[in-house]
């Protein structure tokens, strides 16, 4: 699966969406759209958020599933929350 680039490879700035294409009829929409903050997370963080939702927000279940301790998983979530707050304030 292709990774969605969220950072500019040249200046590390946040990328905007400038073109959307319909997979069926190939209609193209161009413009400048900001990526939703969840999509600005890196793939690993996005996978974590997805797993968090799929496990009904239970960090204990996630810890067992990921074979990590509870505080390790909670720290990861706290780091993502910090990053989301930062992205929201930017």
């Amino acid at each position, binding site marked *: 699966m292709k990774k969605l680039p969220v950072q500019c490879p040249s200046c590390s700035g946040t990328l905007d969406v400038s073109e959307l294409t319909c997979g069926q009829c190939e209609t193209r929409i161009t413009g400048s759209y900001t990526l939703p903050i969840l999509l600005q997370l890196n793939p690993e963080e996005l996978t974590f958020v997805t797993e968090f939702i799929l496990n009904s927000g239970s960090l204990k279940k996630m810890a067992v599933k990921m074979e990590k*301790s509870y*505080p390790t998983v*909670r720290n990861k979530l706290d*780091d993502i929350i910090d990053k989301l707050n930062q992205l929201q304030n930017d």
Partner: protein
Amino acid sequence: MFKILINPFEKLQENQLLSIGVFAMLLGSFIGSALNARFDGFLDLHFTHHTGFSTVLLDNLINTTSSILLLFGLGRYINSKTRLIDIINTILVSRIPFYLLPLFNLSGIISRASDLLIALSQNQISVQDIPQFTFVFFMVFAFFTLIAIVWVITLLFNGFKTACNSKTTLHHIIFAIGILLSEVISKTLIILFNVAI
């Protein structure tokens, strides 16, 4: 395997860590009493000529309880989400390397070597009176003691970091102060409440 030895807090669940920590403390107290070792301070180990299980266990209870309370307070200051169980596990598990050190005193050699070195420092005997083997054994013991101290501090650091998600230099300084204070407080409490040998 190496990662588990220096940072079991990342993967092992809290019940596993608690079981290992409690078992290690009981076993360590038994080894200490059988081989005449006292854990008379959070980062202390001394050999005597006679001690009992209850004395060594009380040493360990004072060491762990005082450091748990202190590091839990500091952990809460760093991160309000810090849980008591994670600090308890950090303290209990991090002491495991210390519990292995009394094994060097299997035939009482460290106790005797300590007596000789004290006598030497007080000019009661000369260097020639100390057998060469005793010197070599003491050096080997000192080397493994250093490894154990580094291992203990590494476990403490990793456990505390995991428990309260500490990251910044200030957090690391708070941790270092906590360890030093733990030693001072536990040593004082043991002198006050557990002088029996």
